[in-house]
């Protein structure tokens, strides 16, 4: 299991710029529950690579544009 604090994301920001897409809408497009999207946005849950790629695809961005890894936090 990945440590939750090391992976940062801009999912909330991406939703905002995607015409205020709802968490439920994103969850349905990605194939996870709304609670998982919420946990990802709060930085409490680091998604699998597959889900991370799917989220980036929904916003038509690269993975790095949505998720970043902070090596400084241990």
């Amino acid at each position, binding site marked *: *299991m990945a440590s939750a604090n090391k992976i940062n994301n801009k999912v909330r920001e991406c939703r905002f710029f995607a015409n205020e897409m709802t968490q439920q809408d994103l969850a349905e497009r990605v194939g996870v529950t709304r609670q998982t999207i919420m*946990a990802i946005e*709060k930085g409490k849950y680091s998604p699998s690579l597959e889900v991370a790629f799917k989220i980036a695809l929904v916003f038509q961005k690269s993975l790095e544009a949505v998720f970043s890894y902070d090596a400084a936090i241990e």
Partner: protein
Amino acid sequence: MNMSFKEKSTWLSLVATLLIFGDYAISVVIMDANVLNPDEMIEVAMHNLGSAVLLIIIVEIIFQSLIAAGSRNKMEIDGDERDRLITLSSNNSGYWVLSIGVIITLGHLILPYVFGIEFSLEERTNIPMFKMHLLLFTFIVAEIVRFSHQIYLYRNDAV
């Protein structure tokens, strides 16, 4: 409260287990050996256990169906990768409790024969079919720990 289907389902299982098997455990522990003879105690315990098992099956079927009917989509019912991770993590906690209980039961069975140590909890209680109940209570506690850990992880948005 903002809960997924899996979380609601876990809450239901926890409350049902606590109430139904808690009631059964109390009924067995407080049995009075002065009122009932050993055979009657076993008969009453088995009757209560049968009722508890039947009741938990009925409660789970009815209420889990109601929760599922109220869920918005199939994804919530099936669960996603986070649900699976939470389940795995909480299963691990339950497994530890179950293992400790099984080791205690084995110790209780083996010690008098192997080392000649007479350490019998059985003589200090009135619980009928003591060894079976030791295992049963271990299983129930393991389930309660598993459900509680699962709810803790859901409530903290963590895995």
